[in-house]
């Protein structure tokens, strides 16, 4: 049906095909569309994924809840510390944002999984891949759109919380490096964690399953470490503590519970490496498997 703005003549609407398509260089008898053909690229796929992610409620809900958690818990801890008169001493004020981010990251994990797994649960993936046979382009576009969205929201929110906390409390003055790490750094870390969830979602193809896997990835190392009493397992226990995701987020805030382990920007490089491997797996699996 290629009738543009002109209303079709009512009685013959079905019988009268519009004129222009029989020529235009197509082989005789074959249909050629009058709409100009433009080869789509990654930019088009990114625009499409942006339309998709902004037009569902789960995005608004997960990111909304995350902002509420980050701001709410950040301000609450700052308030509790300010009335408790406990000496803040050398604890950097910005570290108080840690608890909110820890909980908020669950929301990003959920959104990351839903970004891809909801396509499978609704069957939308078949429609999508019919409109875009290049599966790698589709997954790249999803990853880019999701990562930028999660990064922007997390960085802005942690920045706002940091400013409010330093205004409420007078602890040690954080330097610029710490400011960048606890906002942009944490934003990158949480968005990458979300990207890992997206990769897991693409591998598992089931929302609840993938979210469970990701929550386990976040929490299980800590839970396992708690039960490793045996001295022979002490080193494993230590490693699990040090490299568990909550501790990694903590060390980006200089609020690590362990004395050794990754510090500074190191957690970001670790999660980037893990996510790169998972994404490679997701690309390979998406390309090979039937939809």
């Amino acid at each position, binding site marked *: 049906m290629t009738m543009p703005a002109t209303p079709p003549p009512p009685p013959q609407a079905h019988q009268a095909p519009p004129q222009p398509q029989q020529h235009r260089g197509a082989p005789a008898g074959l*249909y050629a569309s009058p709409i100009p053909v433009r080869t789509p690229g990654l930019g088009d796929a990114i625009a499409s994924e942006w339309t998709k992610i902004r037009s569902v409620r789960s995005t608004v809900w997960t990111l909304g809840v995350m902002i509420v958690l980050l701001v709410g818990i950040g301000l609450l801890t700052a308030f509790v510390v300010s009335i408790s008169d406990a000496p803040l001493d050398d604890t950097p004020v910005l570290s108080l944002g840690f608890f909110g981010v820890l909980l908020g990251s669950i929301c990003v994990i959920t959104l990351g999984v839903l970004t891809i797994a909801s396509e499978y649960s609704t069957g939308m993936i078949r429609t999508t891949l019919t*409109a875009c046979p290049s599966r790698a382009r589709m997954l790249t576009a999803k990853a880019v759109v999701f990562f930028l969205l999660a990064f922007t929201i997390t960085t802005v929110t942690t920045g706002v919380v940091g400013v409010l906390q330093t205004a409420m409390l007078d602890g040690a003055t954080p330097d610029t490096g710490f400011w960048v790490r606890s906002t942009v750094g944490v934003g990158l870390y949480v968005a990458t964690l979300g990207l890992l969830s997206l990769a897991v979602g693409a591998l598992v193809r089931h929302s609840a399953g993938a979210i469970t896997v990701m929550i386990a990835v976040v929490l299980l190392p800590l839970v396992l470490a708690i039960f490793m009493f045996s001295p022979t397992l002490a080193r494993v226990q230590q490693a699990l503590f040090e490299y568990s995701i909550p501790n990694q987020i903590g060390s980006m805030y200089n609020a690590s519970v362990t004395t050794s382990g990754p510090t500074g920007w190191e957690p970001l490089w670790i999660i980037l490496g893990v996510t790169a491997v998972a994404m490679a797996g997701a690309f390979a699996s998406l390309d090979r498997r*039937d939809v």
Partner: protein
Amino acid sequence: MIEAVGLTKRYGAKTAVHNLSFQVRPGAVTGFLGPNGSGKSTTMRMMLGLDRPTSGHVTIGGHAFRSLPNAPRQVGALLDAKAVHGGRSARNHLLSLAQLAGIPAARVDEVLGVVGLQDVAKKRSNGFSLGMGQRLGIAAALLGDPQVLLFDEPVNGLDPEGILWVRNLMKQLASEGRTVFVSSHLMSEMALTADHLIVIGRGQLLSDMSVTDFISANSADFARVRVPADRPECREKLTASLTEAGGGVMTEPDGALRVTGLGLSRISDLAHESDVRLWELSPHRASLEEAYMRMTQGVVDYRSTADAKEGLQLPPPGYGQPGHEGYAQPGHTPQQSPQEVPQQGWYAPPPPGQNPYAGAPAPTPAATADRTERKTSEDSR
């Protein structure tokens, strides 16, 4: 032009599609028929590159779908009306697909108008009825104004107006020189819409021919003859003389006779000779549905049976065991009456060229089952 060559798809031990080869030509509506589970949807998914064939290949315009340049502008498909994210509005759904395919956004409103969904364009699609979902799926297929269109059960859930619209749409699309490939279970629709038929059963090609050829090859016309209802002896007399003249005779449940192998005039003459009045002598054209049923009888995987509720019924008072007397047809005397038209399963008359009185109906699975069942009910009596 769609071309499948030796297409095979196995899921573990189960072969969904086996060595399927066919061509779908442009400029015609090609119907794709087959019983449930015969591999229609699997075939369509392989055409769209969603499933990878175990062996063989299928090409559209000479390319495999996944290596087609500008695939969404060349192929449009409706696979499953509910293959949309229900939380997204109809317009945003189509917009995301248009953006993905590099199609101008103005086209979205155009196709929404074409399918008649412009009033609900801003509504989330999980509130849509099945028919509205189908319209949205058709809109998505038309979005790229493609040369090749695949529709899986497009009229599912549509209202009569919508069915008429889809029928005309298919024909119009084909008349514009496009390749239109439609799967459906609605034989009456296919008879009106399709020019060519591809029939598969258990994943294998059963038939690839035009609709008219298909009907004449798989079914035959018959004459319906009715004698006065109060004169059963006339019916037997006529049956005898018709059979003698070489016709195949079967009874219908209401007492009419189904005669094959004899022309209307010959039947009339024979009736006149045997001095039997006729209340009805009408030609019956075989329909696509009958031809289809005949062809696919042997390859139906999921066949329904009568719901007898036998184990749940209380035995009637006065009988030692659950009696079948009530089910026995009154006056049922298998020795003298001609073979009945089987009421369970489907029966279509045999195609011309077969011996019309070679044991009346071919012993189809359904007919055999029917007869055995009746026999057991008599035995237990």
